[in-house]
């Protein structure tokens, strides 16, 4: 197995260059993606369900809750977002539980591009990242120059991470190389003047890709194009992250690293609201990828209401009693 390098480094780019033959033409890329092993839906769902029966108690639960908190991309993506709302969310991300300073901070605050500067300012001095959704999020229906401008704007405003959406229309009609090139262009747009770059998360909107085979192909396509993270959903359609879909992503990053040595992160997003759900995802990461992925550098939750449930469960563990929604902050 090749030595491991992170997807966001220079070495990763060299590794990907060695796969250039696969992405040279539309037909080569199609042959490669369609040559990936198929996914048996029944078996996949059964595996995800079985992992969901793991019983995580006491010390393991305490560990998992803190780990989950530290992996959250605390998100607000509403038309009604204001600087005030974003600042409140940032404060919450830094100090999730005002009564307990031992609670870890979340991984990042995820906002629309125009809120990046506000978030950046509010998070100054903390370890939190600012993630911005870009590329005509959530539908992705805009011309490439618009998407690139969207991305550059967010990066210029200080975004540490860019969450882009793929063109599902192009993917579903089989124009894989177009999707590939688009991701590459966005990756280039993530580069700052000083040569460093915002990390790129690529959202598939798996609820629109529909089949697990498509999800696996999209995962490989995005990783070949240089994705630092692959992400299930925008949270804006009816079906968002599910355990089986996330399991396909996890298997894809595992296989991609085995093939190229490049390690890519995974972010399920949308619909993960309870501690119980979050712990199921962590179990899935643990038993599919192992501890190398069990950090906020390699696994994230895209969520908003999840944090409060984790805090309530954390209080329950430390006090033995359930407190209630008035003992966590609303944002």
């Amino acid at each position, binding site marked *: 197995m090749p030595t491991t390098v992170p997807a966001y480094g220079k070495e990763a780019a060299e590794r990907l260059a060695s796969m250039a033959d696969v992405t040279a033409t539309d037909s080569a890329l199609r042959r490669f993606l369609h040559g990936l092993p198929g996914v048996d839906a029944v*078996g996949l769902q059964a595996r995800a369900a079985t992992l969901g029966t793991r019983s995580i108690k006491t010390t393991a639960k305490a560990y998992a809750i803190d780990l989950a908190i530290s992996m959250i991309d605390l998100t607000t993506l509403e038309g009604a977002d204001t600087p005030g709302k974003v600042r409140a969310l940032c404060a919450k991300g830094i100090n999730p539980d005002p009564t307990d300073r031992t609670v870890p901070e979340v991984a990042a605050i995820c906002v629309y591009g125009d809120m990046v500067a506000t978030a950046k300012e509010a998070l100054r001095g903390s370890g939190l990242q600012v993630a911005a959704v870009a590329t005509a999020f959530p539908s992705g229906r805009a011309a490439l120059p618009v998407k690139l401008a969207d991305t550059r704007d967010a990066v210029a405003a200080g975004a540490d991470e860019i969450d882009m959406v793929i063109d599902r229309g192009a993917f579903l009609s089989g124009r894989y190389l177009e999707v590939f090139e688009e991701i590459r262009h966005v990756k280039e747009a993530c580069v700052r003047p000083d040569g460093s770059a915002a990390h790129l998360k690529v959202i598939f909107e798996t609820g629109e890709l529909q089949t697990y085979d498509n999800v696996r192909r999209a995962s490989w396509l995005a990783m070949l194009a240089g994705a630092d993270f692959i992400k299930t959903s925008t949270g804006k359609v009816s079906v968002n992250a599910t355990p089986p879909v996330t399991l396909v992503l996890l298997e894809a990053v595992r296989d991609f690293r085995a093939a190229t040595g490049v390690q890519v992160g995974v972010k399920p997003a949308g619909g993960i609201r309870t501690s119980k759900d979050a712990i199921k995802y962590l179990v899935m990461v643990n038993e599919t990828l192992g501890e190398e992925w069990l950090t906020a550098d390699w696994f994230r939750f895209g969520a908003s209401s999840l944090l409060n449930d984790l805090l309530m469960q954390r209080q329950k563990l430390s006090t033995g009693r359930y407190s209630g929604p008035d003992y966590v902050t609303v944002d």
Partner: protein
Amino acid sequence: MPVFEYAPAPESRAVVDIAPSYGLFIDGEFREAGDGKFFKTLSPSSEEVLSEVAQANAEDVDRAVKAARKAFESWSALPGAERAKYLFRIARIIQERSRELAVLESLDNGKPIRESRDADLPLVAAHFFYYAGWADKLAYAGYGADPKPLGVAGQVIPWNFPLLMLAWKIAPALATGNTVVLKPAETTPLSALFFADICRRAGLPKGVVNIVTGDGSTGAELVAHPGIDKVAFTGSTEVGKAIARTVAGTKKKVTLELGGKAANIVFDDAPIDQAVEGIISGIFFNQGHVCCAGSRLLVQESVQDELLDALKRRMRTLRVGDPLDKNTDIGAINSAEQLARIRELADAGEAEGAERWAPECELPSSGYWFAPTLFTGVTQAHRIAREEIFGPVLSVLTFRTPDEAVAKANNTPYGLSAGIWTEKGSRILSMASKLRAGVIWSNTFNKFDPASPFGGYKESGYGREGGRHGLEAYLNV
């Protein structure tokens, strides 16, 4: 130490109350064995004595058969819908007591609670529900307008799925109007005795179900008893052959569900991740104590390396240990005797030149344990490719073409089950038509349903259990 270490999550033992000793269940009552003998039943995960159970002798068996004969008259005369009421009632009580029964089963058998809770018990209840539904519809089963029961069924069941095998035997027998004398396995008698209590609570008429516990000699007495009309046996091929010899030339109808050495065939276009899961559940489900276990992996040479890497990686995540821990994947081997047999065959595999591999795993110091084990470089000539190991040991063989896969898969005295892994539908159908096995799974393995008949070819036995076909074994047709 791993970063994300799962804390112990034991299911509570307090939900099950095991008496210090149990008698025989004959004619609706528990009674001591004629000569007052008992034997101990152990928890294989700790060697702790769980209870003492009566050892039935010839007179006890005779008493049980007579009770069943007496009950047969009125039971068989009941309208099917009335018999169904009892079966539905039994099924519901099983569901209500499923947690208790799951813990009991894991204690006495050694299987992980995750399996007894999520597989055994739901299937047990489903089996009674399913055959309850048939009881008043026998005229539509395809065996004539008014098919008659046989009489008294003598049933001998194994230790691998104690309560599930009981359900497979008792549910169709009762639905069709037979009465039964059942002998549970020597190492796992407890759930059958709890079932006896369930029969009482369901108000089942006395003598319809009788449970006689004991060792092989009790089973032999039951099978040879002239008062029974039907023998149903699940267990080893060796004992099955002895039973067939015993009943030869008598009026008794026989069904035998015996051993297996199933081939799990993985083609190069298989969904690899799911195939790995299927291989794992095929051989490590219930510690490999499964007659239809996929104990021979036939993998196409072109994907052998990739598949074995994935399989080993997956095997490293298997959690071996306390059967009552909800996170345990592989529990204890059922008995010292079985452990010795697994060890002997595994050692033979090594001695004959196959390459042995097992993930690092710490086994408990007391009880009977065997780490999940993989043998590569196995050929058709090795003992571990031919003999049923009945343990968590997988033999890996390779093939180059579909014809070679069929030839190797069928090249065994057994023929109980087989698995096919490919994304190509036409290949599934063509393979299934050529494999000589009673059950063929495609892109899955070890899936059971009461509506689906189960049984073998060749030395895996004859007769079918489950589904409409399962009625035939208990009807005079």
